[in-house]
């Protein structure tokens, strides 16, 4: 097990290098001059532009720029600055807790509601509850995220006033609506996935055996059927947690949360290479770590899986 984890961790190194190189190259290749974009309608004097280019190594060839950047990262943990001189590390420190909180809240919603709905729908298959759950989930999955966001803001924020419409000045309460929005689509997928897996499991031989042995229904479902059915669901939840970073771009923007998603969006528009590379690399790391955790979880859920 330990050997396996070490091997996986070592694999992170090429992944991170490749990811930073690709992201850096993509931002580098974007048409247009970032210094020009900085000035807007009113161009800066050539001397000022030149001074800025020099300061941010923009005159160097691509590989030299990249090498200088990576050198700074590894030797002094210097992740660079924006064109206004704000350290990227600062931005990450400010935005990361917010994005993680949002992701955690969303994850709880989709895991808890998705799994409960999935179990109910499978156990009471074809009943009214099952139909109700299925129909409401289809609606949620079909609605665009933006529409759900505005609907919730309008209903619970503006008209009922139960939750803040935007910002995070009111603490955890502020994360509930955006969390629901971010979780909405995946909740539906989790529930439907679990329902079909569980229905299949409930018809399998080992469940019949367990029931025949006189085990209580609840124990049969939770201990035997559910445990097996959860494997694909856990894979999905893991992968989804990682892709949530992408969804956060829209949700953070609509709910005005100062997290990393909105930050990376603005930085791409402004061609702030260093910010984009820093944050996207973080997202990539996040993704590989979660994948590792999901793989390790398999072993817990399915004793037949061993990592040696």
């Amino acid at each position, binding site marked *: 097990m330990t050997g396996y984890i070490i091997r996986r961790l070592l694999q992170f190194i090429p992944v991170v290098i490749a990811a930073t190189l690709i992201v850096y190259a993509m931002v580098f290749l974007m048409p247009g*001059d970032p210094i020009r974009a900085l000035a807007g*309608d*009113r161009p800066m004097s050539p001397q000022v532009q030149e*001074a800025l280019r020099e300061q941010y190594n923009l005159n160097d060839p691509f590989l030299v720029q990249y090498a200088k950047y990576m050198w700074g990262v590894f030797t002094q943990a210097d992740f660079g600055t924006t064109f206004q001189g704000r350290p990227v590390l600062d931005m990450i420190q*400010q935005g990361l807790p917010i994005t993680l909180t949002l992701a955690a809240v969303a994850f709880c919603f989709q895991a808890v509601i998705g799994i409960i709905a999935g179990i109910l729908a499978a156990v009471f298959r074809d009943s009214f509850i099952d139909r109700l759950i299925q129909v409401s989930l289809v609606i949620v999955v079909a609605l665009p995220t933006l529409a759900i966001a505005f609907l919730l803001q309008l209903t619970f924020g503006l008209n009922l006033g139960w939750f803040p419409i935007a*910002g995070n000045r009111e603490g955890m309460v502020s994360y509930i609506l955006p969390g629901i929005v971010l979780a909405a689509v995946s909740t539906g997928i989790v529930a439907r996935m679990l329902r079909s897996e569980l229905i299949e499991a409930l018809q399998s031989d080992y469940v019949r055996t367990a029931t025949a042995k006189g085990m209580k229904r609840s124990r049969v479902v939770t201990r035997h059927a559910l445990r097996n059915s959860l494997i694909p669901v856990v894979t999905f939840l893991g992968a989804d947690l990682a892709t949530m970073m992408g969804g956060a771009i829209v949700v953070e923007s609509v709910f*005005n949360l100062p997290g990393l998603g909105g930050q990376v969006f603005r930085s791409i528009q402004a061609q702030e290479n260093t910010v984009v590379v820093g944050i996207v690399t973080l997202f990539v790391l996040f993704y590989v770590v979660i994948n590792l955790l999901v793989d390790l979880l398999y072993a817990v859920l399915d004793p037949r899986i061993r990592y040696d």
Partner: protein
Amino acid sequence: MVQTTKRTALTATSLSAALVLAACGGDNGENGEADAGQAETGGEFSTYLCEPQSLTPGMSTEVCGAGVLEQLFTGLTEMDYEANEPVAGVAESWESEDNITWTFELGEDWTFHNGEELTAQTFVDTFNWTVDPDNAQANAEYYDFIAGYSDVVEGEADELEGVSAVDDYTLEIVLEEPFGQLPALLSLVGFSPLPEAAYDDMDAFESAPVGNGRYEMDGEWEHDVQIVVNRFEEWSGEQPGAADRIEFRIYNDVSTAYQDVQAGNLDLLYNAPPENIPMMEDDFGDNQGSFETGTLTFLGIPTYQDDYADVEIRQALSMAVDRQEIIDNIFDGALTAAGSFLPPVLPEGREDACEYCEFDPERAASLYEEAGGASELTVYFNSGAGHDAWVEAVSNQWRENLPIDDVSFQSLEFAQYLDLLEEGEIEGPYRLGWTLSYPSAQESLEPMYSSTASRNYTGFASDEFDERIAQANAADADDAVEAYQHAEDILLEELPVIPMWFERQDVVWSENIDNVHITPRGLPQVERVEVQN
């Protein structure tokens, strides 16, 4: 000293004192104060802000930063937006015989928020620092009218020859050429004084600027969250801020901010999103308004291309567009069709001065045909900024009203778009806008259309126009209005760009506040906002 006393009297005794002062009449400044109605002061409110690019005055080129910096700093002069003229800032008075050598007499009581005193030398140091190419300040170019600018920029001199402190409270500025609009220009945030503390640690200064303005920072700039300022009680000017405290709340998305105003979480939003404009009156009743600004949207014409060298082609293209129809159909009427180059919000602006901006399809068609206009053209605009619909509408009108068979489009990212404009490789009409950094006729004409201007992408070069601008710049305030109109007359005939419309700022506010005013640049004058109760 006199001024300080005046202010104390006003704030302390409220309305009755204001009435007495008004009755005394005579002095301009006093009238202004009485009109502003200082009855309601104190309290706090919140206002919308977009995340500033920078809070260093020399670096700030956009409205997000300017909105805050105008409160944190007071320059030599300030603009009185009602009268559209520069009034006293740190400088109490100024004079110039020839519009070349200017002498500014500074008030003696000015301090920065940290207690540092302001003298003429403060401005000398700030101006030199801002222009120094090593500091790469984006606003350095605004200083190019000062004698010795090019020597500093090219590294041949360390200091601006044209800026000097005669004594502690007298500043002399010598220009390259006569420029009567100098006091208006100096109201820009790019000319704000910097304290010693700024040079010691620019990064710390950037996150909590120490200025000399009506309001001072309360804590640091919380990126993407808020910037909070308190009224600076030591402020030496004539009209201190009305509210005690202002919270600039930073939003990514104006739609979200709009809902927050509706819910009472935010007090002021100065740029309601287009989709909400039709509902504004239902949503806010009296607490909303549409304010005209000086921002002109236009279609520039590459006059250096053979197809557009003929002035009649440009006139025909302009006359073939029904501006009002596009404004009504695409923008819900939330713009003002342009009938001039000089915005009507300026005293120089003449509505309907532009003969060829009137919609006249028949005349346009015959003019276009006579001049032998091309039957195919390409229109350029920058992508992702909401220009697609109206550019297409204009093209449709051209196809309909002129002998044009085909219009194709080129849309590019803004940075790339500007590159293309700069290189002079545009082959057809292009979309661009111009926001006034300071409300002056000079600012709306010279940087765009003079033959040497770096933002003149049209290739339009008229000696006569350059000359008239130079005359207007050299003119005294009284003659300047007519002189700039005289220069505009050339543009109205030549149409290097086709003026489309002036933007309006749609503003909504909560019941918590009152006395909302918008500058020609489109920013709210938050220092005048009065908090109710």
